[in-house]
């Protein structure tokens, strides 16, 4: 295998001077081998990160990632890329803060610019009760050593001039909170960066390869049936986001997960006017401006089980009208695209990163609408779990058993309603 071509200012200059003819493909396109030590199903950020950390942290490089479409074409490529660790529950704080720390070094670690931009994630609120909630949550963060600040209306006016702070609107904004180290990253680059770095360590990335069955003998996983033939596997890690229920069903397992749609939309590009990510509590809408200048707007779930990946026009209208209410200048922008992704909504709103009741089989899933920020830590923890056949302390709380023992991690206190989180 050829050594990975490292990217740097010098390689860029060399490329520029030689007409950009010397660039190698960032990863190989190998034929699947008959078997691997570990096979990862799903070539989104989570699956690719798992493969990378298996090879880098645990020395397990006889690994394949099987992706039925193209890598990064699932939710990784459909999300609004908000990265933050502003959680209330200690288990979530520890996990997402670990993830944020990995994000902070990721471009260097992968030798690939994932364009992580810690520009600050702001949540604004409208009532005393909401203020109390957010102050409590952010005090909890500070207590855990995570950065968090309270913002007055004048702070907000200074940080986000585009926000309508007038008392005349339906739900006026009374204040906000910020996690300054939160931000956004380039979604495709995360998939590509992990793919390239994993490939360089010997991992086979196999696209156009759909898993159709899981082979189990005497309670132990032995391989997978795929559209490109059977592939043997010592261990299998599932990282298929909204498709988790379907994959585990192949192993006769049921999950406390329902599949729902989340919509996002993006406008034509305009000059930079907002360098923060802003979430509005009253309207369930969040807005940021991409590096290309587009205004990226996300909202809540359609609210009923769906695999259609289309998104309801009713929800789109909610999202857009809320964006226009709080960011009036957005009302004159044309929307270029809208889309939806299939979300694996768990019954407590928290993920499952755990071994499953078949020997050698583990999963990461149940990411609801917040799994992009988790990509590094999810891969890190699933790799650990597969390598050691036991969870790391960081992901031990995210077990499948917790739904039976009652040790659920219900950040929003919404109860067992998949679409309520």
């Amino acid at each position, binding site marked *: 295998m050829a050594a990975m071509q490292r990217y740097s200012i010098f390689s860029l200059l060399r490329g520029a001077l030689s007409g950009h003819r010397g660039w190698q493909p960032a990863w190989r396109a190998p034929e699947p081998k008959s078997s691997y030590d570990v096979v990862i199903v799903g070539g989104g950020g989570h699956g690719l990160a798992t493969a990378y950390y298996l090879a880098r942290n645990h020395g397990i490089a006889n690994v394949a990632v099987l992706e039925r479409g193209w890598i990064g074409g699932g939710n990784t490529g459909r999300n609004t890329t908000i990265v933050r660790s502003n959680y209330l529950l200690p288990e979530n704080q520890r996990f997402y803060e670990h993830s944020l720390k990995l994000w902070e070094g990721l471009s260097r670690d992968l030798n690939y610019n994932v364009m992580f931009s810690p520009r600050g994630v702001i949540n604004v609120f409208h009532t005393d009760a909401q203020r109390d909630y957010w102050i409590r949550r952010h005090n909890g963060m500070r207590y855990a050593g995570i950065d968090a600040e309270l913002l007055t209306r004048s702070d907000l006016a200074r940080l986000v001039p585009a926000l309508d702070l007038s008392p005349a609107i339906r739900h006026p904004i009374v204040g906000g909170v910020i996690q300054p180290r939160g931000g956004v990253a380039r979604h495709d680059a995360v998939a590509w960066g992990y793919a390239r770095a994993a490939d360089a360590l010997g991992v086979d990335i196999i696209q156009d390869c759909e898993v159709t069955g899981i082979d189990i003998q005497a309670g132990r996983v032995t391989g997978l049936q795929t559209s490109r033939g059977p592939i043997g596997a010592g261990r299998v890690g599932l990282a298929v986001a909204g498709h988790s229920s379907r994959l585990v069903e192949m192993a006769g397992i049921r999950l406390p997960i*329902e*599949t729902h749609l989340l919509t996002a939309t993006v406008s034509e590009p305009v000059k930079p006017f907002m360098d923060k990510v802003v979430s509005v509590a009253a309207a369930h809408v969040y807005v940021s401006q991409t590096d290309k200048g587009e205004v990226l707007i996300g909202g809540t779930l359609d609210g*009923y*089980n769906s*695999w*259609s990946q289309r998104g*309801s026009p*009713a929800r789109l209208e909610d999202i857009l009208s809320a964006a226009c209410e709080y960011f009036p200048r957005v009302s004159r922008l044309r929307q270029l695209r809208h889309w939806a992704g299939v979300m694996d909504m768990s019954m407590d709103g928290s993920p499952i990163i755990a071994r499953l009741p078949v020997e050698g089989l583990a999963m990461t899933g149940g990411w609801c609408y917040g799994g992009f920020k988790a990509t590094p830590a999810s891969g890190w923890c699933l790799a650990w779990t597969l390598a050691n056949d036991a969870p790391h302390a960081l992901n031990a709380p995210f077990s499948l058993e917790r739904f*039976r023992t009652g040790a659920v991690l219900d950040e929003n206190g919404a109860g067992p309603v998949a679409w309520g989180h």
Partner: protein
Amino acid sequence: MLLIPCPFCGDRDETEFAYGGDAGTERPADPGAATDEAWTDYLCFHDNPKGPHREFWFHRDGCRRWLTVERDTHTHELGAVRLSRP
């Protein structure tokens, strides 16, 4: 946008309804006697098919009756709609 044919109100927009989830779940008849296992199954482990699904919808802004609706979760094609409690 779903247009749900309510037996009383006719074809109505999805925005008039509240979703109630998997209609295949059965609340244990005697909660005190139900095992933890049975409760967890009822609360957390629901059908999640990519295809035909039987589900509850509450006509919140209409007749305020619970409906049991057959809907394909992939194509959104609607099948039979009936009252959940006749």
